[in-house]
């Protein structure tokens, strides 16, 4: 090899080729493996390793982010959680009382009264890390994992509405797929007409982020200002029913498309996520208190 202008030897191509091939090998292994990827255990180990570090970093940085909240004690935090819970339940009831009940008030009220609980049991958690936009996927890490009773395919919400679902749970942290991710599909129900549809994320977290709603019934239309709640799945996984998602911001209908398209403005502000709750079974036993619906004081370790 001829020496370069500066007299330094030319960089070896072999190293580059080797590293590129290694990258391609990792990509192939992970992409081909799908859910049973050979990298899943590595990912889980990395989660166990990085989760606590991210937790500590976020905890260290949080006082600077919210100086007024610096001297917040655990008790105050718990009280705040309880009030957040109460507000969430109240909001949900309000929602049922306005949009939905206008339509089928009798049935719904009966259903609500009949169901053992109007709300859900929640494991409180804080967001400790958020994937950068450069990675083009909208996921966050929360500081509750399997040790707190959190498992994949559980619903995550905050006091404004639906946040997303648990994708992967490690020991002390879990990864949550946000509603706005392009891979996220949620079944939604319109408050006014009870029509169901599928909500897809656009991959934006900006303040003006929108979700696309496609109604199942091609004849149905969405009205501007309509509220949308989750439709729910079997056994509440991955989404429990009745969690507010957002409001219809605009409706469009093109002749080419079979169904009406509506843009939904989510209730949750995805740029400033902090305190969230994971919907769990009320009997869950974990290392942190489970907030049960209807009660204003948190129950220790679930009853």
């Amino acid at each position, binding site marked *: 090899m001829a020496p370069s202008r500066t007299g330094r030897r030319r960089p070896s191509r072999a190293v*580059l080729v080797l590293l590129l091939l290694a990258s391609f090998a990792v990509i192939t292994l992970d992409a081909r493996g799908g859910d049973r990827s050979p990298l899943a255990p590595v990912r889980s180990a990395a989660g166990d390793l990085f989760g606590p570090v991210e937790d500590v970093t976020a905890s260290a940085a949080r006082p600077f982010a919210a100086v007024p909240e610096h001297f917040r004690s655990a008790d105050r935090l718990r009280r705040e959680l309880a009030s957040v819970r109460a507000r969430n339940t109240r909001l949900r009831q309000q929602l049922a009382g306005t949009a939905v009940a206008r339509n089928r008030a009798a049935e719904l009220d009966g259903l609500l009264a009949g169901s053992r609980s109007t709300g859900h049991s929640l494991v409180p958690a804080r967001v400790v890390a*958020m994937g950068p936009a450069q990675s083009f996927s909208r996921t966050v890490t929360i500081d509750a994992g399997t040790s707190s009773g959190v498992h994949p395919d559980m619903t995550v919400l905050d006091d404004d509405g639906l946040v997303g679902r648990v994708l992967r749970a490690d020991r002390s*942290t879990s990864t949550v797929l946000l509603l706005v991710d392009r891979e996220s599909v949620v079944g939604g129900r319109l408050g006014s007409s009870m029509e169901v549809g599928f909500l897809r994320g*656009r991959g934006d977290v900006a303040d003006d982020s929108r979700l696309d709603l496609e109604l199942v019934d091609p004849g149905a239309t969405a009205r501007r200002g309509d509220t949308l709640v989750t439709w729910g799945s079997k056994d509440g996984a991955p989404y429990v029913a009745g969690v507010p998602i957002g409001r219809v911001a605009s409706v469009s209908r093109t002749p080419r498309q079979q169904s009406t398209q509506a843009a939904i403005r989510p209730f949750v502000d995805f740029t400033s996520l902090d305190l969230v709750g994971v919907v769990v079974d009320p009997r869950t036993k974990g290392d942190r208190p489970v907030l049960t619906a209807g009660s204003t004081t948190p129950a220790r370790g679930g009853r």
Partner: protein
Amino acid sequence: MSALRPLVLVALLVGAVVLQVSLLAAFSSLSYDGVVPDLALLVVVAAALVRGPEVAAGLGFVAGLLVDLAPPADHVAGRWALALVVVGYLAGRVRDDARTSAVGALVTVAACSFVGTSVFALSGMLLHDPALPAAQALRVIPVAVLYDVALAPFVLPPLLRVFRWLRPREVAY
């Protein structure tokens, strides 16, 4: 010293990766529509400017794998590794020009940020992970480049100093 070197490198990379994902969560005001400064990329560029393409590409591979595997990442693993290997190699090839002037270093950071994010976005489009529209990628990439360039004057000099300190003695004469 020789036993210390890999430890310092690993600590540097882990720190960069963790700060990248955790700072955003704590300081939502620091991100612009979710875009945060790519610290791992700056570490790789700094390594390339001091140590050259081979070391930087190797470091880029490790840094990329950490970004790929550390929560909350959920994309196909290896995509950032690929992007940062390319970044390390490219930055190492131009280091004679980039080292002499501050402007040269900033241009290198801008070019590396553009190439790195683009390689990552393109690999995602090829793998449908997710099926990303080009318009969205084109909206994110310029912001990412600007953010990396804006942070480079503050982050790059200390990183360069660390890598010079870590350089094996026999090269330093």
